[in-house]
């Protein structure tokens, strides 16, 4: 993937840039909002990582300008501003995701991957399929190997999120934000417990297990073909 990183702090830029390159991505770096804007307008990137506080033109303004110019590249805001209002501000300005510093690199990577493969104009899907797992979004039914699996509504949402991000790592925080809309870090193992219950319903006793635990990062629902 081709990633544009707009970050003025050299150390963070180095840390993020090096990490992404190690994972096989091409990273362009801009040290301020104006350079970032120039690069983003001129080249096609898969994902942009934008710091909110930048010298000159700030991240929020840069993204607003890009969106106004019709640039649809997914944007991940990276910031120390952790207030609820500030996150809403970021998303309203045209950001697609929001990550607060300090962060674990695995978290950033997972989010960048999730953003990068998002189809900008995804056709409305009514059935999701991963391997022998099938989810009917309209009938709200899950079948695996032609066997119906009964799920609680929240488990359904959890599985839906995993399936929509199939073959990508999703972190605990991503699940909390997207499945439960929790924007805080619970001290208990909510996610682990729910994933384990989900596994016992749709993943055990079907030959191969689809939900994989990625140590230190999160979970990944993998189709058997890969």
């Amino acid at each position, binding site marked *: 993937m081709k990633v544009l990183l707009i970050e003025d702090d050299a150390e963070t830029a180095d840390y993020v840039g090096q990490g992404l390159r190690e994972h096989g991505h091409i990273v362009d770096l801009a040290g301020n909002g104006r350079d970032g804007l120039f690069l983003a307008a001129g080249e096609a990137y898969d994902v942009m990582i934008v710091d909110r506080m930048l010298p000159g033109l700030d991240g929020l303004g840069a993204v607003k300008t890009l969106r106004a110019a019709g640039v649809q590249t997914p944007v991940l805001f990276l910031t120390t501003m952790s207030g609820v209002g500030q996150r809403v501000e970021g998303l309203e300005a045209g950001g697609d995701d929001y990550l607060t510093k300090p962060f674990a690199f695995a978290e950033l990577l997972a989010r960048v991957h999730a953003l990068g493969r998002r189809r900008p104009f995804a056709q409305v899907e009514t059935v999701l399929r991963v391997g022998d797992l099938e989810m009917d979004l309209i009938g709200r039914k899950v079948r695996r190997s032609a066997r119906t699996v009964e799920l609680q509504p929240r488990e359904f949402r959890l599985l839906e999120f995993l399936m929509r991000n199939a073959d990508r790592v999703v972190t605990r925080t991503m699940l909390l934000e997207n499945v439960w809309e929790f924007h805080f*870090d619970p001290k208990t193992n909510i996610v682990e417990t729910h994933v384990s219950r989900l596994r016992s319903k749709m993943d055990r006793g079907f030959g191969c297990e689809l939900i994989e635990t990625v140590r230190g990062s999160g979970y990944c629902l993998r189709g058997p073909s890969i």
Partner: protein
Amino acid sequence: MGRRFNILRGSGVRFALLHTVVFVISVAAVGVTAEALVTRALKLQAGQRVEGEAAELLDEFRQYGSDAFRKLIDAQTASGESRLHYALLGRDGQRVAGEHLVARAAASVPAAGASTLAEIRLTGSDRFLLNLRSLTDGTTLVVADDLGSVDDVEDVVANAFTIVLGISVLLGLVAGFLLTKGVLWRVEAVTRTAEAIIAGDMTRRIEPTGAGDEFDRLATSLNAMLDRIMQLMDSLQQVSNDIAHDLRTPLSRLRQNLERTRIHPATTQDYAVAVERAIDEADGLLATFSALLRISQVEAGNQRVTFRPVDLTEVVTTLFEAYAPDVEEGGRILTCAVAPGIVIDGDRELLAQLLANLIENALAHTPLGTEIRVSLLRPGRAERGPAIEVADDGPGIPAAERDKVLRRFYRLERSRTTPGNGLGLSLVAAIAKLHGAALRLSDPEPGLRVTIAFPWRLHVEATTGQTAPLGSSGTSVSGSSLDPAMMHHT
């Protein structure tokens, strides 16, 4: 020295002078008025006297005729018994009988009608009040009163008021000065106290005199303000002390860990473990910092702008569903009783966090087998808003410590060893306060019950139905009774 100069230059002197001027003007006005009134009364009296005497003499004239009357006038003048003066003028205006002086005075008065009253001052003598009466034989009777006594009285009154004026100027100045000094002294007391506080003596307060006047009220208010500031400063200091203290422990653990690894270098595996532990420790520190940051953000109260209608029923149900399996796995029971369709104006994220903290708090501080009950109570009578309750039948909190557990970093003695940073309930308190909700800790015997009672005004709507749709989760929860299906969430 400078202070004395200030008193002379200050607003006090202006006040004293103004006070004196007003005082003097009013005394002078009283004096002038009094003199005018006295003069007028005395002149009126003199007029009545001369006119009365003339009328009496007129009767005598009618009775005895011209010659006898002439003799009578001369006799009256000669006797000197009366304080009045008499004269009789002929047709030509020359004296016929009586006093020459009076006759001379009367000569200058133009006759007008049967009776004329006139005031005349002769050179080198007193003023006279004359009454001229034309008699039937062509002569004119003159009765005069010496107004010298009126002049005397006027002089006395004028003198008296001049003295009073002098005294009042003196008194005015003295009173003004004393008054000013009194006021300035009180103001000075405030200034001195303020200066002492600026110099660092935060315990100084303004001494009220006990008079109960405006100055005492001012002193009381200022003292109360100083007390409040002191309280805030104390709590601020307390918080920074707590932060410093509570962050030292994990930081020194982190340092020890790294140092040990440096001194005893071993396998790569050992390094990996040490790094893992250091990251965990740093994450813990960062979590503490973000919790603190979050508390102060919430306490700053500028998030009210993010308030919008929040379906509390949905929030409580979501939280219950999220935590139930985990609580169960932790060997405790989570039950839930949710009133349907409760919507308030608030911040969904923060309310979810509030409930999560309460459940986690109950989970962290109770033994295995404890039942944790989460309830959402419908608004009651008397404008009581909806309320969230989280109760457990664990060991509870001693009554004396209930207030303290809301403080940052405060942990009960028996909780020192359990994981946590002592910030959970502080954040709950801050979120409750942001929503104007009352936070109450009580004892359901046994255990701890935390009640968050929202104010009536935040309450948006309450559907009357027995069940309520719960957003995308699609489940519904029965009203006030416990739903067995929810109790054993599998």
